[in-house]
């Protein structure tokens, strides 16, 4: 099974673009069969930005990251953790 490298790259890029503290952005990959979970952690004050009104930003990030994961041949979920 391949690692979701492209998805990781894209996710990290997008989140860093949006937050105030890009250095505090961390992405952990929990790999599983056919489906990986990308866990994002950001600085406490940045969570609101990354999620956006009614989760709009978070959902847009998910959509784009899932598209990226197609290149990796895996399905991914993105979770934003406090």
């Amino acid at each position: 099974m391949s690692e979701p490298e492209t998805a990781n790259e894209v996710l990290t890029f997008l989140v860093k673009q949006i937050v105030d503290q890009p250095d505090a952005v961390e992405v952990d990959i929990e790999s599983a069969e056919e489906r990986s979970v990308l866990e994002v952690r950001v600085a406490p004050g940045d969570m609101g930005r990354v999620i956006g009104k009614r989760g709009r930003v978070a959902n847009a990030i998910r959509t784009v990251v899932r598209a990226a994961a197609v290149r990796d041949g895996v399905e991914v979920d993105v979770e934003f953790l406090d």
Partner: protein
Amino acid sequence: MEWVEATGRSVTEAKNAALDLLGVAGDEADFEVLAEEEKGLFGRVKQEARVRARVRPAQPRPKAEGGGRRNDRKRNRNRGGGGGDRSKARSGGGDRERSKGRDSGEREQRRQQQREQRREQREQDREQPKRERQAARAGREESAEDSAPVAASVGAAAAPTPRSAPAEGDVVSLDAQAEIVSEFMSGLSDAFGLAGEVTTITVDEETREIQLNGDDLGLLIGPRGHTLRCVQDLARTVVQRQGDREPGRVRIDVAMYYAERRASLERFTRELAQKVIDSGEELALEPMRAADRKIVHDTVGEIDGVDTISEGSDPDRRVVLIPVD
């Protein structure tokens, strides 16, 4: 941005009609109700409701900029008031900002730091955008269109700018916004491992288009353009992190998706318009997004013998072509 006027059997209908004209969603427009509808006997409409609307500017415009230009264009009513008016609008914006975050002072400070960082990074990067953005940051006296950076404003910007309210006068020009989106798109294309080429096009005074072209970009467009719309949303989020911005739009197109779509929707609309003219019967289109409805309205607007109205409410709002004599 220009105001448009629209009428309808109710204020809501008039507003919807105005949104179609603007081609934006309801939360992106400012409205002014010019006249409420009046119902006559048996619910017949005695007087239609009239509203005026415009695309909501990104932020209230600071006083320093655009004072003359816009007022000249504005026709009447409570808009012509000049400075007093405008500063009220601005402090209103400030209030909103304040109530948004519990610790907005702190956040503002962080944002300021972030801006500094970005500027430093940019200084290493490139000469031209840096000057432009500094000019934008300096709270220029010139109108927004004069985006060419001048030596004086660069000098002014180089000085540290401690302000009580840092957002004020910190207007990011449309070209600087386009530059941010352009960098965003090349970064995204790199992260995808795609070799896309990014071009910036000036569509008109208040519109820039960032095009990403290359091979294998389908992933960035997604089913019916869904991924592309998300990319557009994210780019907008990134741009909105800047403080005050010159009003206008930076749109994105990938592999000419929108361009081709627009062309085929125009072609389709012309065919339908001809059908309506030939048959003399109304024809309702499928529900569409505001941006698409605008394309239909605009296309039909150039054809004699047929007119458009919109009915229903989003997301089921649709355009109806009606024959006229």
